[in-house]
């Protein structure tokens, strides 16, 4: 290897370490570093002294591009536009929230309902977590505080998909703008629960399937987003618990794995603790 190549490798290795320390999954960090090595570094490296700086800048650009899905033929996803589009056709917009246990799905749904209400939209929630202890009461209390109706159907033990169906029928009959479907947490490795989720999605036929991921998760974020995406197709993600001093690398792990945008981040436990995803904030965290 030439001296330049060796110094390049070393600079890239150091920066890859930065990614790992910031909670970027190993597989994602490898992929990102491999890509910039192939495409961009070759041409830019001229003067030896600046290698560290050049590699850092190229990596930063690459991370920014990944998070903003630069060069992807996807139009910017907007919750409000999707709702307006669906309502024009006489139907409520349907959003289904999925993810592993404890990531913040139920709380995030409450935040989104609050957000939509503030924008003047009517919302109904579907309590499709019919398994976990206290899940129905938790969602009901959030619904009451936010001021929206929740469809519980048969409650615990009843069919999750049926509750989603009932909520959509209810919303359609009353011209309610949006239906938010809460689902039970499930491990991506549990085939039965992944099948149950597929059924809920089939019946609900949602406009968006939203993956809710915990920003504190490490390498498992790759497996989670990948498996959920393979099962039902994720349209976008919401990353929660950023306020816990999350390093932000999880955002990179998820987006680089499923190539879908992060719409919002959760920044606390209150209804206002929901912010639009800002790629620059994450880039600054990591670098």
């Amino acid at each position: 290897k030439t001296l330049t190549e060796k110094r390049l490798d070393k600079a890239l290795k150091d920066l890859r370490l930065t990614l790992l320390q910031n909670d970027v999954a190993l597989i994602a960090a490898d992929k990102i570093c491999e890509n910039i090595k192939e495409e961009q570094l070759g041409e830019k490296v001229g003067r030896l002294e600046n290698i560290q700086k050049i590699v850092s800048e190229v990596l930063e650009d690459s991370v920014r591009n990944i998070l903003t899905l630069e060069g992807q033929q996807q139009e910017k996803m907007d919750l409000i536009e999707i709702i307006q589009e669906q309502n024009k056709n006489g139907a409520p917009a349907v959003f289904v929230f999925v993810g592993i246990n404890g990531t913040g799905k139920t709380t995030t749904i409450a935040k989104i309902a609050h957000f939509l209400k503030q924008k003047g939209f009517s919302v109904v929630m579907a309590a499709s977590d019919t398994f976990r202890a206290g899940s129905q009461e938790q969602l009901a209390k959030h619904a009451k505080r936010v001021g929206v109706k929740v469809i519980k159907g048969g409650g615990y033990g009843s069919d999750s998909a049926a509750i989603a169906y009932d909520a959509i029928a209810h919303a359609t009959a009353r011209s309610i703008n949006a239906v938010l479907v809460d689902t039970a947490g499930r491990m991506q490795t549990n085939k039965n629960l992944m099948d149950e989720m597929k059924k809920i999605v089939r019946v609900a036929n949602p406009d968006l399937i939203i993956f809710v991921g915990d920003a504190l998760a490490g390498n498992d974020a790759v497996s989670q987003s990948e498996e959920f995406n393979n099962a039902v197709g994720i349209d976008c993600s919401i990353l929660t618990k950023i306020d816990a001093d999350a390093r932000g690398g999880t955002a990179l792990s998820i987006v680089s794995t499923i190539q879908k945008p992060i719409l919002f981040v959760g920044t606390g436990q209150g209804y206002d603790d929901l912010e639009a995803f800002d790629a620059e904030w994450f880039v600054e965290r990591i670098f």
Partner: protein
Amino acid sequence: KLSSGLKRAFEKLTRASFVDEKVVKEFVLELQRALLQADVNVELVFELSERIEKRALSEKLPPGVTRRQYIVKMVYDELTEVLGKKSVPLEFSPGKSKIIMLVGIQGSGKTTTAAKLARYFKKRGVKTGLVCADTFRPGAFEQLNQLADSAGIPIYGHLDAKKPVSLARKGIAQFKQGGYELIFVDTAGRHKEEKGLLREMKNIANAIKADEIILVIDGTLGQQAYAQAKAFHEATEIGSIFVTKLDGSARGGGAISAVAATGAPIKFVGTGEKIEDIEPFNPPRFVGRLLG
């Protein structure tokens, strides 16, 4: 497919006729990858792998042991050095009341774990009670109440209670009077940036004179594990760790950081959502899962 790299590296090491520096370095690289993917703290991964590389290249093979066996034992020893070599039980004195408080980050599994632990000990003839001192989360009392009912465990708590400290104190007093031997106290989730909540946790622990504080760690927790565990430990001395969600694909490396940050042993792990999904910590099995 995670462990195939490490597996191949182990095989190469076995087939090597003498300690070739290149083979060892290759092996150490694969070991690093396995540990990083398992969410072990980055600094610790490099510290461990450097030590293992040095030892593998300098130590003489003891008689009757193959190169591979020796290196496997070395890796295992280095990891259990941090984690502890054997399973440490949750101790208590029969006939006396022991107060155990569960703390941890939002969503890590505290409420479910409190019920799991209570049922685990009830099945072994211990008189156990549950106290719901989470007055913040909507539906927290209902959640623990439903779990307690399902296992026939007495629970103290109120719907819409507002003060966790006084509630916990009253619950403990009631259970102590009733001669309960293990009293598990569930608290609200909190993280290291919420200084006010860390103070509240300290106040609850002092008010109820908690005998042991269990830090519940989510098995999917990444590089934040060390800093978060340290913050909890600085507010209230952590007595033991409970690692949840190991039934998923997460390898639990964050738990090692939690042990390193608190000096506390892992006593149990959570292996599912149901109340019976709990197992005493098993170091060899945990290390095996860690290495993929």
